[in-house]
C-alpha cells in the first residue's frame, strides 16, 4: 500500500514536472500541435481532405502571404506558425463546390491579409481563419460551404480531440473561455428549444461535432484576438454564445438571413461579437502592442 502511494506520488510529480515544462513552450506550438493532430487523425481515419493539393495550396498561400506582408509592413519576417495554423484550419473547414481550389487560395490570402488591414491600435480584430471563412460564406455562398459533418460522427475521435484540446487550452490559459462558451451554448440553446417547444437534443447536438471542436479550440480562444482579463473573456464568450443563439432563433423563425448564418452560426457570431469586443478592449486599454 505504501509502495503504491509512493509510486503514485512519483508519477504525480513526473506529470507535474512535465506540465511545468510545457509552460515554457510558446502557446502557438501547442496549438499548432493540436491542429496538426486533428488534421492527421482526420485524414488517416476518414480521408477527409479529399486531396492534398488544397492543403499544400492553403499552406503556401498563408505562409507566403504572411512572409510577404510582414516584410512589407514591418520590415522583417515574422514567425509563420500562426499562418500555418490558419492554413490547416482553412483546409479542414472549407468545402468548395466541385473540388475548386480557388477558395483555399483566396481564403488563405484573406485570412492573413486581414491581420494587416483590419487593425486597431496595431492589433488585428478578427481571428484570421474566422474572418476568411465568414467572408467566403457571405461572398460566395454558391461556391463555398463550411465543414458541417466530418470525422465520421465518431465518439472516439471526438473524445481524443476534446481531451487534447482541453489539456492544451488549459496550458495556454484559455480553458475558461472554452468551458464558458460550451456551457453557455448548452444552456442558451436548451432554453431556446424549450421556449420554442422543440426537442432539446437536436439543438445541443452540434456541439458534439467537429466544426465546433475547431471553433472552441482554435477560433474563440485565439490569444491574439481575445480581450484582456479572465473575467472579460468569460463575458465575451457568453456574448458570442448569445449572438449565436439569436442567429439560431432567427433561423428557427425563417428570417431571411444569408445562408451563411444558418450554416455556420457560431462562426458568424464570433465574426460579429469578437471584433467589437476587441475594439472596445483596446480602446479601454489605450495602449499599443
Amino acid at each position, binding site marked *: 500500500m505504501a509502495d503504491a502511494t509512493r509510486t503514485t506520488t512519483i508519477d504525480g510529480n513526473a506529470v507535474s514536472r512535465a506540465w511545468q515544462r510545457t509552460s515554457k513552450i510558446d502557446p502557438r506550438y501547442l496549438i499548432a500541435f493540436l491542429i496538426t493532430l486533428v488534421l492527421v487523425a482526420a485524414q488517416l481515419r476518414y480521408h477527409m481532405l479529399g486531396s492534398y493539393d488544397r492543403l499544400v495550396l492553403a499552406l503556401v498561400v498563408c505562409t507566403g502571404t504572411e512572409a510577404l506582408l510582414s516584410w512589407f509592413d514591418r520590415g522583417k519576417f515574422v514567425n509563420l506558425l500562426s499562418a500555418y495554423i490558419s492554413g490547416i484550419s482553412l483546409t479542414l473547414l472549407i468545402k468548395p*463546390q466541385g473540388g475548386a481550389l480557388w477558395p483555399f487560395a483566396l481564403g488563405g*490570402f*484573406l485570412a492573413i491579409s486581414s491581420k494587416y488591414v483590419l487593425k486597431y491600435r496595431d492589433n488585428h480584430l478578427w481571428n484570421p481563419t474566422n474572418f476568411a471563412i465568414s467572408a467566403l460564406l457571405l461572398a460566395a455562398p454558391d461556391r*463555398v*460551404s463550411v465543414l458541417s459533418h466530418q470525422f465520421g460522427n465518431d465518439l472516439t475521435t471526438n473524445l481524443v480531440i476534446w481531451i487534447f484540446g482541453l489539456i492544451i487550452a488549459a496550458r495556454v490559459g484559455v480553458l475558461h473561455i472554452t468551458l464558458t462558451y460550451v456551457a453557455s451554448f448548452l444552456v442558451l440553446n436548451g432554453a431556446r428549444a424549450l421556449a420554442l417547444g422543440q426537442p432539446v437534443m437536436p439543438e445541443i447536438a452540434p456541439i458534439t461535432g467537429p466544426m465546433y471542436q475547431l471553433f472552441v479550440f482554435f477560433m474563440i480562444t485565439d490569444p491574439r484576438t481575445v480581450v484582456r482579463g479572465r473575467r472579460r473573456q468569460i463575458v465575451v464568450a457568453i456574448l458570442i454564445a448569445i449572438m449565436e443563439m439569436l442567429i439560431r432563433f432567427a433561423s428557427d423563425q425563417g428570417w431571411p438571413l444569408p445562408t451563411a448564418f444558418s450554416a455556420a452560426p457560431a462562426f458568424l457570431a464570433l465574426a460579429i461579437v469578437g471584433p467589437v469586443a476587441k475594439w472596445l478592449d483596446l480602446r479601454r486599454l489605450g495602449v499599443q502592442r
Partner: protein
Amino acid sequence: MPHRPGHRTRRAIIAIPFLAAILLAMRLDRGPVRASSDATHPGFVLRDQTAAAGIDFVHHRPSFDPKIAGVEPHVAALGASVSVTDFDGDGWPDVYFTNSRFGEPNALYRNKGNGTFEDVAGAAGVADLNEPGEGVSMGAVWGDFDNDGREDLLVYRYGYLSLFRNVDGKHFQDVTAPAGLHRWMNSNGAIWLDYDRDGLLDLYVTAYFRSDIDLWHLTTTRIMHNSFEFATNGGKNLLFHNVGGKFEDVTDQMGVGSTRWTLAASSADFNGDGWPDIYLANDYGPEELYLNDHGRRFQLTTAGLESESKSGMSVTLGDAFNRGRLDAFVTNISERGYIFQNNNLRVNEMSGSHRFRNVAEGAIADAGWAWGAQFGDLNNDGANELFVANGFISANRNRSYWYAMSKIAGANGRLFEDAATWPAFGDASLSGYEPSRVYLNRGVAGWVDVAKKVGANDLYDGRAVALADLSNRGTVDVVVANQNQPAVLYRDFPDSANHWIAFKLIGTRSNRSAIGAEVLIEAGDLKQRRVIDGGSGFASQNDRRLHFGLGSHEWVDRAVIQWPSGAQQTVVRPQIDRLVTITEPER
C-alpha cells in the same frame, strides 16, 4: 512599438488586394469567368410527351409507423422507379413503374408501337404489389432468369421480395416462394448478373434499412444511420445464386454482404478479366468495388474509392471519354451554402493503376441533390451525355429543412441514429424543386448543363432515370420516375445529320437477356464501349438494346462483343442507322 515610417501608406496598399480578393470571391460565386461557347448548339432537344404517350403514372409515397412521423418525409422519400424491357417480345420497349403506398398499383406500360402506351399491369398480374404485410415497392429489374426467352420481373420492396415469371408475354406468375426468394428486405436496389458465368442470371439485392426492421411496426426508433459518412449499420446486401430457377443465398460465401446503406449497384467487368464485378453507391459512406475472383469469391478493393466519403445516391456506367472503358458516375448531394459533396465521375484505370480516378469538376460535380443518372448519346454525336434527376423533398417552398439537418449532421452518431431525436420535418422542403440536369459532353472542354436549352424543365423530385429508344427511331428517349409526383417521358430529337447504330444481343451460352454483355465499337477514330445492364442508376434499368451515336461516321469498322460466357465475337462492318440483332454463337 513605434511604427516604421509610412505604415499607413503600406496598410492602404495591402488593402487594395485584400478588397480585390473579396470582390473576386463575389465574382467567382456567379460562375465561371469564361462562358461555355458550344453549349448554344447541343444538337438535340427533349420534348415532354408524357401525356401524348398516354403515360399518366403518379407515384405515391408510403406512410410508416407513427413513431417516426417526425422524419417520415425523409424515410418515405424513395420508391419511384422505372425499368424498361420488351416484356411481350413485340420489338417495342415497355416501361414498368413502381408505386409505394398501400393500395396504389404499380404500372406496366405496354408500348403499342404508335407512340402511345397502355397500362396492362393489372391484367398481367404485376400491379397490386403494395399491401400491408407485404410491404411497398421500391423498384424492379427485368431479367430472363429461366432463359425461356421472356423477360421476368423482380420487384424489391421495403418488405418482401417478389419474383414474377413471365408466362406468355402477357401474364406473370408469382414464383417467389418456390424460387427461394421470400425474404424481407428494406431494399432500394437490385441487379441481375451472372457472376459465375454459368449462363443463369444471379441476383444481387441491396438493403438500406436493416432487414429486421418492419417500418410499419417498429419496436425501436433507433433505425437511422450512425454516421453521415461511415455508417455500417444498414441492411445487409444479399447475393442469390441461380441454381436452375431456385435461388440460394451465397452472400457470405462470396463476400459481398456490405451493410453500408447501399442505394444502388451496377455490374460490369471493370478490370477486363472476363468476370463481372460489382460497384456500389452507398449512402452515408464511401463507394465500394467488389472484384470478382473467377466466380469463386468477390474481393472488396479500395481502388481509390475510399478517399472520399459522401452520400452515393446512384451509380451508372458509361464510356465517358471514348476510351473503350466503362467509367462510373456516382451522384451525391450538394446544397448551396450548406454542403458540396460533389458528384464523382470516376475514370476507369483498373487495367493500369488498378484505380478509379475522380475527374468530376465544374458543372458536372454539382447537380444539386442528385439521384438517378444515365449515360446516353442524346445527340448521336458519338459522345455520351449525362441525364441527372434531382431534388429530394419538394414541400413548402418557404421552409427548408437544411438548417435542421445541419444541426444533427455534425453531431455524434449515437444521437441521430435514433429517429426520435431528429427535428420534425413538418412541411419543410429539403433540396426541393430542383431541375434535372442534362450535361453535354464536350470532351476535354468539360461538361455543360444544357437542360433548359434542350427542354428538360420539370422541377419534380426526380429519382429513377431510364433510357430507351421507345419509338425505334435511333434516339435515346428519357423516362424519369419522380417521387410522389407524375412520371415524365422526354422524347429525344437529335440532329438528323448524325448516324447511329444499335445492337440487340441474344445470349445462348450466356444468359438469354445477355445481361453483362459488352459491346465495343470502332468507327475510324471513334471507339466506345457499352454494357447491357441488369439494373443501373438508381432504382432503374435501361433498355436492353445498346445504342451508339456515330456522328458523321458513315460506317462502323467493327463491333466486338464480349459475351458473359467469356466468348468474344467480332462483327465487321455492321450496317448503321439501324438495329442490329446478334445471337451468341453456340460454340
